């Protein structure tokens, strides 16, 4: 029996009002200018692991259709950001939405063999202005821990159908995809979905009437709607695919919807996940005793649905589809490889140092204690999970940013230690001394020669509590 131990999702704060952009009704989620598939994946993974849950992970696998890097593994950034052990393997499964289903099935096989996998999917779905992808896409991330033991859900059976079809495609490096006429895909996906669903249910020894939660997803939203109808499940079993509020978050969406369902399911219920992507895949799961609540340190998907409206032009600028006059400042120069490697625990994992003589925390890690001047009496001090308070701040209209002004703050951590850093997801008019913040992994900027500079920012805690 393969089990899912934990599930968590991360939705970025911003929402595009489709009506305001002239592309329909409802909203879609939008990654902020300083987020990408990797950074959102880190946020989902931090939530699913909770405090210190990474110890038992044998491998981390990262899935996305929008890898920030090609020819370089993206999962290693997650691995370092999560402070996983060096012996924990880190792999990408990138390209299409289908990759995440394959990775999930591989992780299930690994679990059956006694190994634990952290499966992370994050995506930024971009389309040209006015396109279906702009309208129906969404940005977000989700993460599962699969392995022996645990009680969130078990994978009972699978069914799969593969097909070579030119429904959508993209030359690597292009920012957006092209799609064939909609009706073609809708017609092609129907029999594939039927076959995968039938095979999965048959292997599980169930009929469609036994399904308590039917989740159907894929980038072809008309085909998804048709397959959902054609499945013949009970009306109360059909799960909202969040198209109207979030959009389809690409490779993240199957895990996002599964997380949402497991947060609301009751133990013993049958969950079917049907994913349409260059074929169809059916996963039949049974909710375990931990179902019906969030796991890890996650915020429930339903609680993350409301967001803050962002202007269409801002989204276009953030995605590089609209160019804005740059400030008269030099472009940021690239972080250099050797110091980035030497300081990887600091840069990616926000690990400072603590003086073993007097307990003072140092960010970044130092060799000489700022309080007692002891030399080389330091131990690593992870601070990503520690909250803090704004001691003072600056709103910088001059500094380079895709989304000026840069809001920077001096943050004092609970239990000691200070960092001077940027704030994320902040309203410049509302920031104040004394505000409570938590740390979040972000892509600070991308240099002219294509280096993504990942580091941590402080984010005001919603509601100001905590």
């Amino acid at each position, binding site marked *: 029996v393969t089990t899912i131990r934990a599930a968590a999702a991360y939705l970025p704060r911003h929402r595009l009002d489709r009506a305001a952009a002239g592309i329909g009704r409802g909203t879609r989620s939008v990654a902020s200018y300083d987020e990408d598939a990797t950074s959102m994946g880190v946020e989902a993974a931090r939530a699913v692991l909770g405090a210190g849950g990474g110890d038992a992970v044998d491998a981390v696998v990262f899935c996305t259709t929008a890898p920030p890097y090609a020819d370089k593994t993206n999962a290693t950034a997650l691995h370092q950001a999560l402070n996983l052990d060096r012996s924990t393997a880190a792999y990408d499964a990138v390209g299409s939405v289908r990759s995440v289903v394959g990775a999930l099935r591989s992780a299930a096989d690994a679990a059956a063999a006694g190994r634990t996998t952290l499966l992370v999917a994050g995506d930024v779905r971009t389309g040209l202005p006015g396109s279906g992808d702009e309208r129906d896409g969404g940005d977000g991330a989700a993460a599962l821990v699969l392995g022996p033991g645990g009680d969130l859900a078990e994978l009972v059976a699978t069914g799969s159908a593969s097909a070579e079809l030119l429904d959508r495609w993209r030359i690597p490096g292009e920012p957006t995809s092209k799609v064939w006429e909609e009706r073609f895909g809708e017609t092609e996906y129907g029999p594939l979905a039927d076959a995968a669903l039938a095979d999965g249910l048959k292997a599980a020894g169930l009929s469609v009437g036994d399904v308590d939660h039917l989740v159907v997803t894929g980038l072809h939203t008309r085909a998804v709607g048709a397959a959902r109808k054609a499945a013949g499940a009970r009306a109360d079993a059909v799960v909202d695919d969040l198209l109207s509020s979030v959009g389809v978050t690409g490779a993240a969406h199957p895990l996002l919807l599964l997380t949402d369902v497991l947060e609301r399911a009751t133990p013993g219920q049958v969950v079917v996940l049907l994913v349409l992507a260059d074929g169809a895949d059916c996963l039949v799961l049974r909710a375990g005793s931990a179902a019906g609540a969030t796991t890890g340190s996650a915020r429930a998907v339903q609680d993350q649905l409301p967001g803050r409206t962002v202007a269409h032009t801002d989204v276009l600028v953030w995605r590089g589809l609209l160019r804005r006059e740059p400030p008269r400042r*030099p472009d940021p120069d690239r972080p250099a490889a050797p110091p*980035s490697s030497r300081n990887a625990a600091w840069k990616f994992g926000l690990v400072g140092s603590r003086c073993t003589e007097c307990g003072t925390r140092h960010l970044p890690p130092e060799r000489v204690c700022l309080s007692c001047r002891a030399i080389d009496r330091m131990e690593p001090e992870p601070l990503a999970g520690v909250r803090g308070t704004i001691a003072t701040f*600056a709103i910088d209209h001059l500094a380079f940013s895709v989304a000026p002004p840069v809001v920077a703050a*001096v943050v004092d951590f609970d239990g000691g230690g200070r*960092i*001077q850093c*940027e704030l994320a997801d902040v309203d410049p008019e509302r920031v104040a001394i004394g505000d409570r913040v938590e740390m979040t992994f972000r892509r600070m900027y991308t240099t002219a020669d294509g280096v993504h500079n990942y580091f941590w920012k402080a984010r005001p805690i919603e509601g100001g509590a905590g």
Partner: protein
Amino acid sequence: MGSNGIRDRVAIVGMGCTHFGERWELSTDDLLVDAATMAMDSAGLPQEAIDAYWLGTMGSGHAGITLSRPLKLDYKPVTRVENFCATGSESFRNACYAVASGAYDVVMAIGVEKLKDSGYSGLVVDPPAHDGTAAALTAPSMFSLLAPAYAQRYGVSEEEMADVLARIAWKNHANGARNPRAQFRKEVPIETIKGSPRISGQLGVFDCSGVSDGAAAAVIVRAEDAHRYTDRPLYVKALSFVAGPGTGPMDDRYDYTTFEEVVRSSQDAYEQAGITDPRAELALAEVHDCFTPTELVLMEDLGFSPRGQGWRDVLAGAFDRDGDLPVNPDGGLKSFGHPIGASGLRMLFECWLQLRGEAPEDRSLASVQAGRTLGLTHNLGGQPGACVSFVSIVGSEPSA
């Protein structure tokens, strides 16, 4: 603090200072030739009489060749120094020590910066290879951190703080309006200052020093030789420089209302010069007003105002040209901009003019006429909590 000082052992006998501003027509070489020539003419010395040079520049050149080539120096020692925004002052300090040591008889300290050619807004520093984790704050942001922290600590309302900062900018512009060498030579109404476009936090355009090109130079000799060159030398009373441990940005006990580096270096300088009440004893102070909150905090760190009272003194006009202690009577960085290598020597140049009675009448100081003979210059470089600080005290009279 472990410094002995060189009080009254060396003296300035000649100075030069270019017009600061957008000097599109002049190169770094031109500015250096101009400032060096003015200083030599002021001292009545030919180039051959100068034994050694200290050149301060942050980024307009590297190595002594930056100076020796444009001046075609005849195989003389030229030391190029850099110490953030105290670069110009640092060239002066080391030049003074060289004379005091007896190694040379006549030396020149010269500073230059050509900022406008970059095409950027504000200062741009090329950092060494890094890991990309340092907060990418511009200078106005780093110093704007002082304003909310000061207001919070001393219960100053946002409106009062706006008045205080505007008052500082207004004063320095009013002084600069009377200085032909300044970049900005216009008085600016308080309301214009307060309504200027925001740069960072509470700081608007008029809270920030300008970006300019400029150069300045001083000729330094042993004090006992000074009267060979001028009847009115300026004696060096104190030189102090400290680099702080840089812990403010990572130490949660630092509250962004003070520069400890300035406190330490000014105490050291006052001790060297035998000053106990700087506000009453100094005739003028040229301080590092890179941003208006910096000048506010400096009034307390330099001991001109008690803690928490600097803002009241500013509003009361204590540091105006006719106040208790004139601060930045030449217009400061506000009116001159901040060509980094030149600024410290530009400050000394104002002491040179004022203490020797050469300042133009509309800028002359009652404090000097009342018999005060000492001037202070101050630079700091870096950011609040992690900076370097320089303080010098010069005087027109040798000690009794």
